[in-house]
């Protein structure tokens, strides 16, 4: 009788001790890799100074144990939502780059890019605050100094169009890089529609 009670007491005490010292499943530090908005997965290394774990697939995760050791750990979407819901909610819209193409030797958009302009405008409107960089480019046909000027005209045309739709001009930076920053590398005096562009960075 007495022995049984002592035994019972020891079992309960043991369970209490075990739970107090239990290693939290997801450690005291936790790192989880997620796919980006395009579904691509990058990589993060996690090191405690001795061990290093490479995380390079979706939901790959590492934790730091109470003994300060980095090790891999399995996590689920439920863990992500449970722990990171508020941080993820607060995530600003990621910066986005658009390319708009121009008719040869002009600051008029091609028909397709004329439609794509609306995507730029729609993206800006979705942001709580915004900054825009507009950088004009040309292909290598024509004089460099002429192209420098044309690239600025193209960038300004996009800026003016954004401003006419109510976007704050003070938040738009305009650059022209002429034929010095080709998207498609070509020889000089080469007509390349994909180089006749304005890159719009919305952030």
């Amino acid at each position: 009788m007495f022995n049984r009670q002592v035994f019972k007491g020891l079992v309960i005490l043991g369970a209490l001790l075990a739970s107090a010292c239990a290693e939290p499943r997801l450690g005291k530090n936790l790192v989880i890799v997620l796919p980006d908005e395009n579904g691509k997965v990058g990589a993060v290394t996690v090191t405690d100074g001795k061990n290093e774990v490479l995380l390079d697939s979706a939901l790959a995760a590492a934790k730091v144990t109470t003994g300060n050791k980095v090790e891999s750990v399995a996590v689920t979407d439920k863990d992500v939502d449970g722990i990171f819901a508020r941080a993820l909610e607060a995530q600003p819209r990621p910066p986005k780059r658009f390319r708009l193409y121009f008719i040869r030797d002009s600051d008029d958009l091609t028909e397709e890019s004329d439609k794509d302009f609306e995507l730029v405008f729609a993206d800006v409107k979705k942001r709580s605050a915004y900054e825009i960089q507009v950088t004009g480019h040309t292909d290598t046909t024509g004089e460099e100094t002429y192209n420098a000027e044309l690239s600025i005209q193209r960038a300004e045309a996009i800026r003016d169009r954004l401003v006419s739709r109510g976007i704050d001009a003070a938040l738009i930076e305009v650059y022209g890089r002429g034929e010095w920053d080709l998207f498609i590398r070509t020889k000089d005096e080469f007509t390349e529609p994909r180089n006749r562009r304005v890159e719009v960075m919305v952030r």
Partner: protein
Amino acid sequence: MRTEWKIFVAAIIVGLLPAFGVAAKSDRIGQLRSVSGEAFVVRGDARLPAVVGNDVQQQDVIETGKDGAVGITFDDNSVFSTGPDSNVSLDEFTFNPSTLKGSFLAKLGKGTLSVISGDIARGSPEAMKIRTPSAILGVRGTRFLVRVDEK
């Protein structure tokens, strides 16, 4: 057209680009884009309430209370957001908008942090690091989550 001209004009333009950027942007390294609940930017001795649209600077510390959350967009197009009861130090941020290279070192002291890395991490695998009290993360891109709970 002529090579000497090319180099000369290109040098002027490349030289001017960062100068404009720096003149316009002073010490800023990014901007607050979302704020909810109790949230502060600690800058030296000042503890400034976090407000959407305000700048963040190198060595700022972002602090959130038990219902707070903050989202930041950085000048290299990195994005941070932090949940409640968190502490994020923006220890080092240097970025050259012409070369798209720089260095980014931040520390999550406690709480939760969601990261989308930008141009700096793309530059080299050593360029962006995040520390926690017990680990160092090397960021090769692009999206990941970090929690620190050392209580």
